[in-house]
């Protein structure tokens, strides 16, 4: 058998696209069957080597953050807006009440002091001076 298959015919045989005559030839021809066998063995070794290599590689785990609505920002913003809105009504009222009460107390105290001052027969400064003088004796006979 001198007429061996050409390179194209061998390639077609390997791909599985050959005719019955070529298939029959490879079965009978030692040279052509060896050509096919050499190729197949090399490719099979390559396949096994690549699989061994890839199977020993570490497979990473996929860490994908869970997709969810982040409400914390909205909540914080809402609280901030609420606080700003409430402050003008709440904060001044809380501060004004003690001020009013204090003012009223102070006014009342001042009025009391004024009333007490007016009710005195003489000024406070004169009271101290007068106190130095002995009180006039009341005649028992009178």
């Amino acid at each position: 058998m001198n007429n061996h298959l050409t390179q194209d015919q061998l390639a077609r045989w390997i791909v599985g696209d050959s005719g019955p005559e070529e298939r029959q030839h490879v079965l009978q021809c030692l040279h052509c069957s060896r050509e096919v066998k050499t190729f197949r063995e090399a490719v099979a070794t390559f396949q096994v080597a690549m699989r061994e290599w890839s199977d020993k590689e570490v497979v990473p785990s996929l860490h994908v953050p869970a997709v969810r609505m982040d409400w914390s920002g909205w909540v914080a913003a809402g609280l901030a807006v609420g606080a700003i809105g409430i402050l003008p009504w709440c904060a001044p009222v809380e501060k004004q009440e003690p001020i009013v009460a204090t003012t009223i107390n102070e006014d009342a105290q001042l009025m009391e002091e004024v009333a007490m001052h007016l009710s005195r027969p003489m000024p406070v400064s004169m009271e101290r001076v007068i106190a130095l003088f002995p009180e006039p004796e009341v005649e028992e006979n009178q």
Partner: protein
Amino acid sequence: MTAKRPLTGCMEPTTTFGFIASGMESPTTEIQDFDRVMQLYWPRILRFIMASVRDRDVAETLTQDCFMNAYRARNSFRGDSSVNTWLMRIAINNVRKFFRNRKLQFWRRVQHGAVDTNTISGRLADRNISPENKALIHEQVSAVWEATKDLSGRQRTVFLLRFMEDMDIVEIAAATGLSRSSVNVHLFRAVRAVRESMGKKK
């Protein structure tokens, strides 16, 4: 993300309807357990991209991108093809984009993570085999690795899917977006080129 389930049945379904044969759920159900999908398909996507770009760092980055894209698009996956074919289509697009991106031309030339075939054949040769067989394994792996380097993008993709991933013509056509006849033509040319390259080295 749901809890991990034990990997049962066939580890790597190879046919479009492999999920039926292996007792696995339908593709649309399967894709919902994405942790499991990653465990199952990460190695094959990684090795396909690795054999395509021939750079370990780039391969890992593109594989991560592939799974991120798949995760984002998982709800639009209709299950017309198997999860494997769908993921492979995404991987092929990522590889294509990588080669098109001119900004990365410089980095492609530098290839920090360029793969030495010893790395690949070394793991296989770790087994208790004779030095002669180890040498033969290394020779065969190097021959195919070097031969696929000079193939065109499409020829390499089709070759790897057929001979490394055992995908049939229909699956390759679905993953690449090519017609079956185009897949056959690219595969034929790839095999011829690989055989020529291997013949020159002898």
